[in-house]
Structure formats: structure tokens, C-alpha cells
């Protein structure tokens, strides 16, 4: 297993939005999905997930309802709202262009300046 990376500040919201955009999930499921997609390369503080979820719901980007989990337990499921979908799209574009710029800067060689 590769070394785990610390999460960049402010990127957790984006990852949650992406995770629930693939289908409704409960909190623990979101954690598992992010770990699964990132192939366990991201270190997420389990406790920090929930304040983020409450914040996102408060902003109206995700919505929650109680449902039944895979092993027949009551669990709170989150899904993306329309506003959340727009938000995810905007954040993704923003992130990509930012990553390009940063990568461009970091990839600069002395003779290119």
C-alpha cells in the first residue's frame, strides 16, 4: 500500500459531493466509497466527515432521508440535490484549472523562465 496522503484543506466537501453523486449513501458508505475510489491513498478523519455533511445539507447541496442499510439497520442516506449537482460541476472545473496552473508552475524548468 502506498503512503497515505493528508487531505488538502477544503477538498473534503468536493469529495463528498462526488461520492454521493454516484448514488445515495449513508455517512459510513461515503467514507468507504472515497477510500475505495482513491484506493486507500487518502487519509480521512472519520469524525470530520459529519460536520462536513451537516454543513453541505445546511447549504442545500445534499439532502438526507432515513432508510435501511444493507444489513437491515436504520441509516441516514444522503443524495445530491440539483443545486449540489451545479456546485459539484463548478468545483470540479475550478479544481481542474487550478491543478493545471499549479502543475504548470511546479513543472517549470529554469531555462523556461
Amino acid at each position, binding site marked *: 500500500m502506498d503512503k497515505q496522503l493528508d487531505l488538502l484543506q477544503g477538498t473534503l466537501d468536493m469529495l463528498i459531493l462526488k461520492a454521493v453523486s454516484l448514488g445515495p449513501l*449513508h*455517512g*459510513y458508505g461515503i*467514507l468507504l466509497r472515497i477510500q475505495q475510489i482513491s484506493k486507500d491513498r487518502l487519509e480521512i*478523519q*472519520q*469524525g*470530520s466527515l*459529519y*460536520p*462536513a*455533511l*451537516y*454543513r453541505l*445539507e*445546511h*447549504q*442545500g447541496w445534499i439532502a438526507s432521508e*432515513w432508510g435501511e*442499510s444493507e*444489513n437491515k*439497520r*436504520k*441509516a*441516514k442516506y444522503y443524495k445530491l440535490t440539483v*443545486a449540489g449537482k451545479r456546485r459539484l460541476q463548478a468545483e470540479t472545473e475550478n479544481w481542474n484549472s487550478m491543478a493545471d496552473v499549479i502543475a504548470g508552475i511546479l513543472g517549470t524548468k529554469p531555462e523556461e523562465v
Partner: protein
Amino acid sequence: MRFWSWMRSWSRAILRRSLLESEMDAELHFHIEAFTEELVRSGVSRQEAIRRARIEFGGVERVKEECRDNIGISFVVSFLQDLRFALRMLRKSPGFTAVAVLTMALGIGANTAIFTITNGLMLHTLPVRDPGRLVELLHQYPGEPAFNGFSWDAFRTMRDGNHVFSDLIVDSLNVIAVRADKLQPQTVFVGQVGGTFFQALGVRPAAGRLIGPEDVHTGDRSPVAVISWSFWKSRFDLDPGIIGEKIVVGDAPLTIIGVTRRGFYGISEHARQDVWWPISLGPSSGMWYGLLGRLKPGVSMEQARAEMAVLFQTAIDRPDVDPFVRRMKLRIEPAGNGVTTPLSQMLSTPLTVLMATVGLLMLLACANLAGLLLARGASRQHEMAVRACLGAPRARLLRQTLTESLLLSLAGCVVGVFVAYVAAHALIRVFASGRFVMIAPVHFEALTKPDAHVLLFTLAIALFTGLLCGAVPAMSASNTAPASALQQGSRIGESKSRRLFGKGLVASQVALSLVLMSSAALFVEYLSHLRNLNLGFEREHLLLVTLDFAHSGYNAAQFSQLSQELLMRLDAIPGVSSATFSSMSPMEGPGSASFASAEDHPEKQTQVSINSVASDYFETYATPFLAGRDFSARDQAGSPVVIINEAAARDCFGNENPIGRFITLSHVTSTRGENTYEVVGLVRDAKYNDLQQPAPPTIYADLLQQGYTGSEHSQLAIRTRMDPDGVASTVRQTEAAALNTVPIVRIMTMSEQIDSSIVPQRLIAMLSAGFGALGALLAAIGLYGLLAYMVARRTHEIGVRMALGAARTDVMRIVLRGALWMVCAGLAIGAPLAFCGKRLAASLIPDLPVAGSLPILVAAAVIITVSLIAAYLPARRAMRVDPMVALRYE
């Protein structure tokens, strides 16, 4: 969108708090259990799995707190905590709370009461189409109240010549008795309207049709009337058969053709019109045209003023127009909030003065409460220090103290609204005694109705004052350095700046109360000056009875005989010394005017007022003769004679003896034509209209010689040897027996009649005196509070001083000297302010006696006395400090 999701989560968080908490709990535990299960599946023992899951997750409570923070409810929750705590603190010191709430209630109540009336009188928007572009046309003799009533020529010239109004609306407002088959006679506001009135104001009928251009024409008008919805409801019980019913307005029988829509009441909210009928047009109609204009789109007020002033000048600048009328000036004022009425003219100056006064009172109340809070804050330093040590951030402490002051001011606001309600109704009773208001059915509820404006205003001042008087004490309380506060325990010395601020607050209260008291003393002095003016007649022991001869049916001979009989019967009542008749009485209001010229100088015209009087008039009013004689029975058949007053003699004859000379009267307001009279008597000047103005040149004609048959307000005056109210009921019976077809309109004493002419001055004097006393009381409470607190803090020091040999009187002197310093500083600051206030008042009220400095001196004396009393109690407590007890106390 986002706003709604916030509101949703907040409302859920506040209203369904326990559900939120239990769901949050369930959700987090589900996570931990799911993780535990997974660990167990991967082969960890259950116990170990539970342990590891908990560690991985972190502190459940901390996570919950963060969740609450993130949906913004921790703010709400801590606010509720603050509120609970503040309530508990206020309940713990009921004395402080009562004084603070009462202070705020009086300040806020006074402001709300005055604002309610200002709002009702001037700020309600008329319920008509596009009220913002309505203006009223007024004209005015220099120095007199403006009025809205134009001659036919002026109306026609302005209607046909103007380019600024899309409509010139006619509505002449009258007070007329109205009767019908199913209706007792009653006096209402009646509008005589032009054909475009309803259409231009966008009024629709609730039943029938409204008056239109086809009803208004030259000469006779259509005998039709429109009534208001509220009149239909209150007088006809919404009878659907109202259309076609007969109604008698004054003497004119009319047919009701329609009812206006609900909520329409004409062009003034307190002078609500209930009946409208068409006005007749043309030069011979003898009508006065009340005019409103609707500005065309894009036309400004200034353009309208400029154009209409020119038009008005051309209309009156003609040789056949009275020279008196030619001196009038046109004014145009916005009318979207209602037109100018006698009531609004009477109250606009007092309300301005009173608004300024209650503003000062509010500042004083703020300073007072700030002082109380500051002293309280200082005594709570220890508590604040403990809370700061336990980790309360400064902002949180600040919020806590502000919550308390806001709570106090809001409680004051609630009580203040009640105070305002009572005060506004008390004020209305004073308005109702006004000369112009007595005869008109004024809709006073419009003035006391608290609407959204008033509630917003009250809430705004409550919040503002809460923050204002809480801010500094809150800052100083939260600014405590915990270490030093805890170290020194309860005996901590105060910072110099805070002590100075507290003293400054007391000084500023003294200064403000000096301004209030000195202006009150000024207004009271002015009122008593008005009440003691020499009026040219004797005001005490005089009963006035207004009689309505309009439906008496008497001819001149009957009138002469019956009135003589009545006067004789009245003379015979025990306690009555003499009685007389006249067309008007002194201080009743402006009378009928005419122009007089001495026989040999016909070119020199003097404006005079005319009063038709019976013999004994001058004896009854105790107006002395300077030369000549009274009217006598012989005059009735003889040549025409008049008696004139000094002003008329001076204006017509200069310094020459007027007796035996002849005067020519050209009647402007009646159509009797010219007449020449011999002057047989000269009497002292008497005031008729305005106490402040010199008596007008007056010509007294012989009532019986004039063929007088009585008007709808003829005046009977009775001079008594006892309290005039005591004979009122006998007079009433005697009158009913002698003149059974002549109803009594009202009975009042001369003092009441004089008071009715000075309502604005009485209002200002009465209320400013009340506010001045209140101001002094608040300042005294402020001083007492600060001194009592300082003495309590200095008990130890006083004990030491006494132990070292200070006498009790020394201790007392220390306290009193400190108090006097504050008071003197306040007086020094207040004196120039009071001076400015005096100048301001003088600019609003002409001939206010501002020259003397007596009011300020009186106010200062009162304040010093009250302060010494307030300071005496804490000083006595200081004097009684037992050194042994004080020192052992530590």
C-alpha cells in the same frame, strides 16, 4: 434557494431540537457500529474492535458540537442561554429592573405618543389613486393661517390657464347638519365637489353611481348626493334600497344616487367626509372653491409653484377685486397625506416642539440607564473575571451584557406602548377643546391609531437605546483583566476613566434636564403671560351661550321682542348681574370683516370687523366707554348709529374726536351695500381672534337697528356674581322657555373660550412642564444611583477616615461636595444648550418672551434642590458608617 434551506434547518434545529439531537446521535452510532462490524469481520476481537472504532472516530461530543456549529444553531442556542441568564439576573434585582424598565417606558412612551399623533396627522397616505402627485392650493394673507377656498374668477383662471396639472379637482369642505327620514340631524363633513372629483381620485361606487361632470353646471346644481360607505353602514345599516332615498343637507333636499367604495373618506383622514354633493359653477354662485391639483407626469413642485403663482396674480390683480384680497399669496403644498385642516394647522408647531422635547427626554433616559448599568457592571466585575478565566471569549461576555440592556429596553418598550396609548388619548382630549375642533366632527381615532409605522418607530428606538446605553457598560465590563480583578477581590479600585464616565453621565443628565426644565419654564411663563393679558374686557364670571336661530322662523320684530324678553328673564335669575346678545363674542374667532372710511376721507379704507350687539353689551363684558353713549331703545327707529373702538377711531379719524362723525361701511362678506353711520360711542379695544395680536379695529352696530334675526351661532353672554357654571342649568331652562324653537349649541365660560384659542400654547406648556419634571426626576435618580454605589464601594475608606479622626460632618461634606461638582458641571454644560434651545423655540413660536434669563435660573434652582435631596440619602448612609464594622468587614 439557499435562504430557504437555511430557514429549514434553523427552524428544525430550534423547534424540533430533541429530534435533531437524537437523529444526530443515531447517525454517529450507526457509523461507529458499522466500522466495528467491519473490524470484527476482518478478524479483530469484538472488544478490541469497539475500542479501535471509537479511537478512529474521535470524540463523539466534539463532532456533534461541530455539526451544530456548521448549521448555525449554536448561535441560536447560546442566544437562548444569554436570554435565560439575563432574565435570571434581572429577576434577582427587582428594584434595579423596575427603575430601569420604568425609565425606558416613560422615554419610549412619550416618544411613541407624540409620534403616533404626528403620524396620524401628517404621515398617513390617502387611499386614492397615485396620492404622491396630489397637491393642494392654498392662499394666505400675510401673517394669517392659509386656507383653501378660491373665488370663481381665480378658480376659472387657474383651471383654464395652467399647464402643470392633469386635473384641477374641486372639493370644498364644509361642516353641515345632515338629516333624513330615518336619521336624526347630525353634523358631518360635507364635500361640495366638481364633476371630475371621483374620477380623478380613482374612486369607484359600492352602489349606484358617483357624481360626474353631468351633475355640475352653472346656476342650479343637480339635487343629488353621494354618501360614504361608512356613513351607509353606520346610519343606514347597509340598506340596499339606499339609492333614491332623500337626504337633507343644511336646507337642501337631495336624492342619494350612490355610495363610494369602502375605505374612501375624502381628502383628510381626520376630517372624513361622509356626504358629497355637486358644487355649482359660475360667478353668481357665491361659492368658494377648494382646490386640489394632480401634477402632470414630469412636472416638478417648483414648476407648478412658479406657474400657478403667476396665474393667481393675474386673477386677483384687477380693479374690481377687493384691495384686501389682492394682498393674498398663493401656496402649493403636497396633499398625498391629506390636506391642511384647522386641526393640522393648530398642531404642526406644537408637535415639532414636542418631538424635539421628547427626543431630549429619550437621551436623558438613555444616559440614566447607562449610568445604572455601568454601576451594576462594576459590581459584577468579579463575576466577569471568573467567566473570562473559565474561557469565555470577550465577544461572548459583551453579548451577554448587551442582551441584558436590550431586554430592559424591550420590556420598557412593551410598557411604553401602554403609556403611549394612555398619553395619546389624554392629548386628544386637549385637542378637542380647540376652537375650530369643537364645531367639527373630527375623526380622532385616525390620530391615535398605532399602525406599522408607529410600531416600527417604537421598536427602532427601543433597539437603538438598548444598544446605546448598553454599549459602553458592556465594553467596560468585558474589558476586565481577570487576574487583577480576582486578586483584589471585591475591593478592587475602579479605573479612573470609568469613574469619570459615570460622573459624565450624571453631568449630562443634569445638562439635559436643565434644557428641558428651562424650556418648560419658558413655555409656562408664556402661557401665564397669555392668560393674564389685558383683553379689554373682564374674563372671569362670564357665561357664554351659543344659540342656533337658523330654523327659528322669527322675523325682525319677533326677534326683537323675544330677545328682549329673554334678556329680562335672564337678568332676573339670582346671581346674574347682566345679560346681552351679540352676533359674536370676544375670543370666539375671526368675525365678519368690512371696510370702513371716514365720511370726509372716502379714499382711505380701513379693514374693520363688525359685531352686531344689543344694548348692555359693554356693561356685560365690562368694556369701558371712553366717550359717548351706549345704544338705547330710541335708536331702533332712529338714524343708523355705531360705536367704535380705539383702534377704529385711530385708523379712521386719527387724533380727532370721533363722536358725532360719520363712517361709511362697505360690506365685503354680505350684500347689504354701502351704509353710512353716525358714531355715538367710543370704547376700549377688546380682542376677538388672537391673544397675541393687537385688537382689530372694530365697529359695533346696533343689533335691533340692523333688522337682525339671529344666525346659527348667535352669542348670549351672562355676567354672574358667582361661579358661572352654577347658573348654567337655570339659564338653559330659561332659554328653552323663552325661545322654544332655538336650540342651544353649547354653553361655556369665557375662560374656556379663551383656552380654546390657545390650545397649541397650552399643549406645549403642559407637556413640556411634565417632561421637565420627569427629566429632573430621572437626573435625580441617576445621581442617587451613582452616589449610593460610590458610598457602598468606599465604605472601607470612610471607615479608615473616621478611625483616623474625621468627623461625621466631614464625611457628609465629602459626599455632598462630589455631588455638587457633578451638578455644577452639568449646569455649566447645560446653560449654553438651554440658550440654543431657547433660540430654536423662538424661531418656531413668534413673540415668545425669550429676553429674560429667569427660566434658566428657576430651572437651575429646582435642579440643585432636587439633587441635594437625592444626594442627602447616600450622604447620610456614609455618615452612619461605623468604623469598627467597616474595617472588620474585610
